[in-house]
């Protein structure tokens, strides 16, 4: 009897292993050559196996479910709160953010345009009371205050913590991604735009369009925890004529023109939130509107800015977005792409985490 059990064990073990190994080897796709350029054989193999091992989402899901059953609710700084994933990882370095602040101060002093800074808390900041103690190194409200305090007096700072915090019971952040939703952006806009000298467009002037109801963001793909429902990607459609005339995206040598700030082709990809100006894939973007006598805005963007831009289009004749990360990749500085003095206003729009990670504001010259 024991012999049968032994044979069964051995057979089952090797059959399963060989099946998965064969599936990985025979039906796998090799990664693009430029991605694996600087890797040795070991790293290449690992990327290949990671990319091609069958059922990888199911394995992740199994692991997460097992660990959640033992009471664990944190995975690599991502916390599972009832129906939401919250990323608390953040790389806080006092020296670094003071340097960034210094760079912004220098930039503002050197330009004739009025400079605004808008720091947005992430879900970890707004829902911090639901997170366990010690989950975060920093209090985002305090951090924003500290940064705002260190900025020069002639730079206007825009508070977004309070409006977002008051709206926290609404759907202001994606459940499965780090980004904010259009609602979150709207609440921040409704308060912030007043400081920039405009009356906000009322919520009743918009129709809600649900572009997708099956968006799983990058926090989800880390855990694949099936209890978290999919996200909706919604866009605010003006009930009246849209003011957007043309959109130009520049990336390296390439330029892409469009008639709208929404790029529906992104809905077919995995990151559906890229519907807003194609995500973080451009160095410079110019949005021109029908308001010919409106002021011009230069927006130095973090990834939260894309969702925010649609709300700005009723106020400006031209909005130019510049991504310092991409400038760094291309080895350019700001003056290679735009002249800040051509603009009436300059807005820095970042979320707390990205602001702390950024160290390339010195390219703004």
């Amino acid at each position, binding site marked *: 009897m024991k012999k049968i059990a032994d044979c069964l*064990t051995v057979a089952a*073990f090797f059959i399963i*292993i060989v099946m998965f190994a064969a599936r990985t080897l025979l039906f796998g796709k090799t990664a693009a050559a430029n991605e694996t350029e600087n890797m040795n054989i070991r790293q290449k193999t690992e990327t290949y*196996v990671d990319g091609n091992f069958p059922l990888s989402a199911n394995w992740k899901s199994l692991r*997460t479910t097992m660990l959640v059953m*033992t009471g664990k609710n944190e995975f690599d700084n991502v916390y599972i709160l009832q129906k939401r994933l919250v990323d608390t990882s953040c790389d806080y370095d006092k020296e670094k953010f003071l340097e960034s602040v210094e760079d912004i101060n220098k930039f503002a002093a050197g330009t004739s345009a009025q400079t605004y800074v808008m720091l947005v808390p992430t879900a970890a900041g707004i829902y911090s009371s639901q997170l366990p103690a*010690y989950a975060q190194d920093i209090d985002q409200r305090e951090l924003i205050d500290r940064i705002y305090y260190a900025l020069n007096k002639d730079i206007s700072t825009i508070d977004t913590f309070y409006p977002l915090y008051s709206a926290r019971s609404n759907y202001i952040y994606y459940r499965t991604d780090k980004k904010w939703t259009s609602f979150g952006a709207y609440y921040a806009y409704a308060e912030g735009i007043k400081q920039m000298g405009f009356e906000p467009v009322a919520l009743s002037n918009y129709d809600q369009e649900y572009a997708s109801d099956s968006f799983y963001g990058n926090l989800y793909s880390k855990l*694949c925890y099936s209890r978290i429902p999919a996200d909706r990607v919604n866009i605010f459609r003006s009930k009246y004529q849209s003011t957007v005339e043309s959109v130009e995206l520049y990336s390296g040598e390439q330029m892409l023109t469009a008639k709208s700030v929404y790029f529906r082709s992104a809905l077919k990809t995995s990151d559906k939130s890229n519907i807003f100006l194609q995500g973080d894939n451009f160095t410079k973007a110019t949005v021109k509107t029908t308001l010919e006598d409106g002021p011009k805005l230069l927006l130095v963007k973090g990834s939260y800015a894309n969702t925010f831009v649609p709300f700005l289009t009723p106020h400006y004749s031209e909005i130019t977005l510049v991504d310092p990360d991409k400038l760094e990749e291309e080895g350019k500085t700001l003056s290679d792409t735009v002249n800040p003095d051509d603009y009436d206003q300059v807005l820095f729009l970042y979320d707390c985490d990205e602001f702390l990670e950024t160290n390339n504001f010195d390219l703004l010259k």
Partner: protein
Amino acid sequence: MVSIEFLYFFLPVFMGLYAIAGTRFRSVIFLLGTVVLTLWLSPWGLVPMTVCSVSSYVFGRLIERSADKKKLKKLWLVLSAVINVSAFVLFFRSNYLTADIFQIFTGESENFKIFAVWGTGVFTLHGISYCADICRGEIDSEHSFLLTAQYICFFPCMTCGPLLRFRDVSDTLHKPLISSAKLAEGIKLLLFGYVEKLLLSNSMYELWEHINSVNVNSLSAACAWLGIIAFSFSFYYEYRAFSDIARGIGLMTGFELPENFDQPFMSGGFNEFIKRFCTTLYRWVRDYVYVPLCRGKNEKLSLWAMFLSVFIACMWFGFGRRTLLFAAFICFMLGMEFILKRVIVVIPNILRCAFMNILFLLGLPLFAFPDAEKAAGYIMSMFGSAKFSGDVLVIYVIKTSAVMLLICGFFATNIGRFVKKKITSANSNIAVVVVPLIEIGFLLLCTAFLVGGGRHLTGFLF
């Protein structure tokens, strides 16, 4: 050895070739496996391995040939020991905070280091043990270089043992046989080792990191205790996991390897503890350091020999300068135990065991922290030095980790062993169905953790 590549690609190919090869060529396949794994980790690793294998083989033969010339024999033995020890010093490093032997003496790391080689802690000790045993006339030297090399660089044991004796494996080396019973038992051990590493050790390591990241001054006593318990479990299960994996692969290839851990947390004193924690290392140090040194039966000398043995054993774990402090702590405890042995005998076993564990956990911060000051701070906080009220962290820790802590405790005590026995001796008709199912479940679980946990492996042995 804990990776998808090893489990899903290396193992089936290796086992397939090994099974086909027939007993004569199995050692060739085995060595090929060693070469492939070493190349996978770092190509230069082959150099010290080859040097140690060749020198052990040559000196083994020489020692045997000069069996009746005592001085010449000694010279060969010393030469082989020098080669192995220098290989150990040059290439051994546990990657944990890049601590190495030089750091112990100079306080600086990365100074003299050439590069770390996988398995240096094992093949050098194998080499010394092989030559010393021949010198003592306990074994005959092996005529085939392939078999000697296979023993010296026995890849399943390379990560952290168990350390082998040539006389225990020489029969199997000559005639490795695989059977369905051994294969099944081996798979069981292998998968159990994977589960220990991926589930238990890693969760405990994360818990330790979590508690460790809290400032010592605001750490409550309860949390400090939970943290150091997590550290000890994580350490224990990591070493036990790799020993079990080694035994598993050993059994699959026909070798019966000794058990390395004998429920150390159930021992009733430090003397017993060091015997039961990493058993094979204890035996190695006893036979090749302690016994030769205190041959004169001089009590003073044997005390020094014991201290030296403890230091060497602690150094083998490769944690840098802090191991000295920890070794001193263990020596102190052994000394105390020796002095108080009349009193200790009277105490019931269960109390002795509890005392031992408490004292061990109190000393463990010396091992867990790189500098003594931090360790002292942590020990203070274990006595409740932090001044604050309302302990949110401990509630959170208990809520999230109690199950894992209990599972770890369960397998570290005799309860786990008892249940395992009950299951294996259960009605054999049920076992036919249940055992393979459990194994498949384990395999799926391991795969889920390997694929889902990402490449980021935490622990001491990476």
